[in-house]
């Protein structure tokens, strides 16, 4: 295990949004087969990290670098990063007017593989995955996220994950807004995706999903830095004690 090199490596990352520094030195390494959970209070910079990893032009890396499979992607465009194997499930997926979910998956599939899978085959694959996620097939012919409920949007993100099969997936609060059954279905989708060949950064507020998707590490982000890392028990501690106490403890130790 330890001889492997990380799939995703983040080194001393500083990120500014509209001139305001949000991340102040984040470092992380995700090795093949690992699931890392990232937790932290509202506004601590979790989504900022997710966007910066994916290469959103508004999120400027002012220091540090991001490596994907050993390759520096800090200045690559989002589509280049995706084609190198990166995926982001958005916390708030936007509606893309006029573009059906099927068309998106097909075009993305083609862009990622550099070639077209035969329609029949691709259609079957999408349908299988949609069924696993208990999504009605009619969603495929609807415009992406337009009029989708909160939970339906999250499911559609995971459908894209399982169909597109990236190497590194950042899942930003995919569990938020899901009912109990949906949470299990989505968690099963994530588990079905997880393999020794890929890695997942799971951003969440709740320990609940971590009962289904077992992380190897749990990190706490606060004020733009990872202030504590630990095993799954850290999530339980957070759930029991809340951020306030855990963070106070961190501060007093520092």
């Amino acid at each position, binding site marked *: 295990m330890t001889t492997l090199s990380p799939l995703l490596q983040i080194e001393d990352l500083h990120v500014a949004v509209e001139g305001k520094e949000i991340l102040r030195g984040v470092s992380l390494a995700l090795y093949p087969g690992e699931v890392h959970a990232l937790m932290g209070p509202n506004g601590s910079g979790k989504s900022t990290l997710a966007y910066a990893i*994916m*290469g*959103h*032009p508004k999120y400027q890396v002012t220091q540090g670098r991001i490596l994907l499979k050993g390759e520096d992607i800090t200045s690559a*465009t*989002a*589509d280049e*990063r*995706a*084609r190198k194997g990166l*995926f*982001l499930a*958005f916390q708030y*997926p*936007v509606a*893309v*007017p*006029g*573009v059906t979910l099927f*068309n*998106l998956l097909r*075009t*993305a599939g083609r*862009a*990622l593989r550099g070639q077209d899978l035969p329609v029949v085959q691709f259609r079957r694959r999408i349908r299988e995955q949609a069924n696993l996620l208990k999504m009605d097939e009619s969603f495929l012919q609807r*415009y*992406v996220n337009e009029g989708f409920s909160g939970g339906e949007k999250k499911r559609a993100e995971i459908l*894209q994950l399982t169909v*597109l099969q990236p190497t590194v997936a950042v899942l930003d609060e995919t569990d938020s807004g899901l009912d109990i059954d949906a949470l299990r279905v989505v968690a099963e989708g994530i588990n079905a995706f997880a393999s020794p060949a890929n890695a997942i950064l799971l951003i969440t507020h709740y320990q609940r999903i971590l009962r289904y998707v077992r992380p190897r590490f749990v990190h706490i982000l606060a004020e733009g830095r990872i202030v504590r890392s630990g095993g799954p028990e850290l999530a339980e501690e957070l759930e029991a004690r809340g951020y306030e106490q855990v963070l106070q403890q961190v501060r007093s130790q520092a």
Partner: protein
Amino acid sequence: MSDVALTQRPLSRLTEEAVRRLSARWGEPGWALHARLDAFHAYQQTPFPPPSHEWWRRTDVASLPYEAFQPDGDAPRRRTLGTARTLLRPGKEYDALLVQAEGHTLRHLLSPAVERAGVVVMPLEEALRQRPSLVQTYLGKAIAPTENRFTAMASAFRNGGVFIYLPRNAQVERPIHLLHILARPQGALFPHTLIVAEEGASATIVEDYWQEGEGPALALPVVELLLDSASQVRYTGVQCLGPQALFLSFQRSRILGRDASLLTYQIHFGSRFVKTVLENHLEGQGSRSDLLGVLFGDGEQVFDQVTLQDHHSPSTTSDLLYKSALKDTARAVYYGTVKVRRGAVKTDAFQTNKNLLLGGRPKADSIPVLEIEADDLRCSHAASVGPVDEEHLFYLQSRGIPLPEARRILVEGFFDPLAQRIPTPWLRERIWAFIHRKMQTPDASKGG
């Protein structure tokens, strides 16, 4: 020579002689000639609509060289169908077809079923001879010839047009396709379309404006629609003239009967300058009107569109969706009024205008206006002008789709809901082809 051309005022081709020649060409009866001459005098005496009028202030229609175009050219040669032939390729379904080149009828076909049902689809001039009382009952009931300088001009120099009459309960299954071809250099086209739907009748009509070649030309159609109770008409106008053409159209629909429904669709890809005035009047209680519009401008094209959703009666519904994409230095003006008259309670009126600005320095103005005199109604309007949304682009890019393709997908997505509502598959295909061609043409402002 050039000195002379500069100093001499160019000869007008919109003369009384031209009016008489046009009337003689179809052997019109005396009253028809007189109607033309009345319109001609109105044309001479009526000034252009003043720029102080909201509908006319944003583009300068008075300075266009209308008189340089010839309305009374000879019959075009056989090859006139030329590139228009591609619009008539086999496999294209229709129940009636009428092709005219500057008023000369080149093709005129009617399916037996439609003929049996008593449906009339006829060149207007022919209808004036064969069905004078029927035509006279309706002609000018929506648009009076003397209404403004343009309608007067069009009535005086009318050189073509169509009369469509749908008798009671007539159901025309497949589209009625009307094709107008501008065939001569410096030609002028003044077609008058009159569509009458009796109670319970239903039809889909596509009116196409096409140009052979790319020279300067003028088209100024007048379109009248009259709908009786429970009739259903879908009327689409598609304008794909050449890059130097001037296109001005006046279209007014009167939905007279109860529970009638009308879809009007305006599609514009061509012409250097386009001005359209479209009014749908909901006069019959419970009637409904959908108004759709698509345009894609590039180069130096200018589009100035005026719409009116006029609710006269209670429980009427109108729903408008107009979208434009613009690139290079193209410009679009949209001025849309929703009017709800006193007593028109339980009205639903919706209006949406969206303008997508692509590469170059295009410009769009969107002006929604509400004139509400009734209460107890639902009314909404939305307008937007702007480039492709950055967050939408990022979403697609995050799925591996390169920027140019992401842009293309979003432009297609912009039009997709409207394309789906194009009433016939062959037209839908053609519209997509035009959209793709427009997207691909290099930015003219960069000289590429």
